[in-house]
């Protein structure tokens, strides 16, 4: 196993690393900002090599003999070239000119569709979900209150009498649970058992952990170890990874951005301009996928931040829940908040 950083970078880019070497590279990248910058420099060269060689696929065989001609342009010329008619007709075009024309053509098509013919509700919803993902990723830590609106049993015919969900111990109730999330898969989910004791699970992004009602603490390097009874996990729509869940929506759901219902366009513009304005995205599950039947996301038009999410008929063990997650606060929760030590009793040993 090679642990030399340069070899690790090269191995990563060529996809030859073992899982251990991959882990070592990740650790090295996290160790210092200079390391990540060194990695970025190596990736720039690797990417440019591909682009340089792809020029050969875009030009004819006759032109390949002319590769002694300059192939590059300065950066300003690249940008200008996208808008200027060519004054000459060179046989050899730089890779950038090839990419510029492709990029410009693509952007023009998008611009025409976007501005000329209006936007389809699905495309608008996709754009908004991408904006919500970006806003969530860059937002401070978020705290949500979870309320269960309805509970129903999944029928035996649908679930099967021998389904693993029936064999497992009951999951802790989600009623009045509190969920704290931070970008990078960090979370703390606090639930109350039926006898009023606290059951806390979480992750600091590197390890997952659980503090059972008796106070015992378990820590695992498997990030999914304690996620299995978190709602949504089994359907790749984990509540604890809101970005992942939103990404899943785009794949497995028909997503629609509901219009703002006002008397006219001017009134709609006025509502949108308001800092309090929220808008609703409704996602309905496609037939071939599993997961909640319907998801509703209410978000701030201005900031793109989620205010509330409703999961309608979400499978949760042998039950089907309709639950609501409402944003309580957004603020930094402290560097160590997502560590188990911040939630466990000091006297309890970690397993």
């Amino acid at each position, binding site marked *: 196993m090679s642990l030399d950083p340069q070899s690790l970078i090269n191995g990563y880019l060529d996809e030859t690393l073992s899982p251990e070497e991959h882990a070592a590279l990740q650790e090295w990248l996290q160790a210092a900002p200079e390391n990540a910058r060194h990695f970025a420099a190596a990736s720039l060269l690797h990417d440019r*090599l591909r682009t340089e060689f792809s020029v050969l696929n875009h030009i004819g065989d006759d032109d390949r003999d002319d590769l002694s001609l300059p192939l590059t342009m300065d950066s300003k010329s690249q940008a200008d070239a996208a*808008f200027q008619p060519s004054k000459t007709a060179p046989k050899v075009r730089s890779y950038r000119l090839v990419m510029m024309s492709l990029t410009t053509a693509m952007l023009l098509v998008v611009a025409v569709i976007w501005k000329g013919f209006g936007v389809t509700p699905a495309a608008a919803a996709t754009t908004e979900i991408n904006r919500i993902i970006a806003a969530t990723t860059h937002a401070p830590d978020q705290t949500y209150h979870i309320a269960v609106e309805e509970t129903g049993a999944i029928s035996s015919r649908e679930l099967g009498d021998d389904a693993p969900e029936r064999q497992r111990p009951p999951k802790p109730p989600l009623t009045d649970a509190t969920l704290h999330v931070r970008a990078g898969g960090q979370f703390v989910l606090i639930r109350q058992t039926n006898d009023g004791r606290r059951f806390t699970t979480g992750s600091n992004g590197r390890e997952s952990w659980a503090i059972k009602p008796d106070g015992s603490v378990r820590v695992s390097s498997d990030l999914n170890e304690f996620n299995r009874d978190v709602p949504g996990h089994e359907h790749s729509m984990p509540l604890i990874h809101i970005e992942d869940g939103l990404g899943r929506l785009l794949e497995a759901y028909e997503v629609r951005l509901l219009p703002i219902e006002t008397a006219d366009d001017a009134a709609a513009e006025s509502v949108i301009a308001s800092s309090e304005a929220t808008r609703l995205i409704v996602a309905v599950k496609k037939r071939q996928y599993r997961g909640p039947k319907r998801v509703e996301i209410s978000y701030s038009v201005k900031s793109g931040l989620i205010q509330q999410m409703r999961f309608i008929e979400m499978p949760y063990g042998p039950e089907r829940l309709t639950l609501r997650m409402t944003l309580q606060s957004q603020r930094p929760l402290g560097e160590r908040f997502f560590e188990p030590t911040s939630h466990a009793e000091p006297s309890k040993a970690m397993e």
Partner: protein
Amino acid sequence: MDEQTRQATRQWTLAMPVVSAFVTSAVRDFSARDDVLQEIAIAVIEAFPRYDSSRPFIGWALGIARNQVGLYLRRQRRDRLVFDEYVLVNVASAFEQVTSEESHRLDVLSDCLRSLEGRAKELCALRYQEDLKPAAIAERIGMSANSVAKALQRIRDQLRECIERKAACEGVT
């Protein structure tokens, strides 16, 4: 083309080499890079009216790129070794700091490539033109995969030195 689209295209054109390298560093597969880059370009033009021009465009575009990369990796269901989310955040941040000079320095790469000969030229073409991984290259030319990987590393080192040398001669810092 209206002025806003023109601005978006111009900014994207300048940012694309760095965004492309970031995407490659995350997804590695070059055809996947092209697909993801296309999605990013569309997202950039769609979202451009909301871009705050007082902030660097590259950081904004990398934010969009990170989301699109995340979506792509989730769709792949993590069947390959990929960076954890928090590592990807750090890597994106490092790309954000790449200066236009650093990016511009690579403009001499085509000159350096002409200095490659024989087996080095062949290996580079197989890796970057035909998009073959070391194991596939090894089968093609009868070397061991390990030797191919090491040879590619040496070639990249050699090219990097050539770039530094030429950049120094041309006064690009």
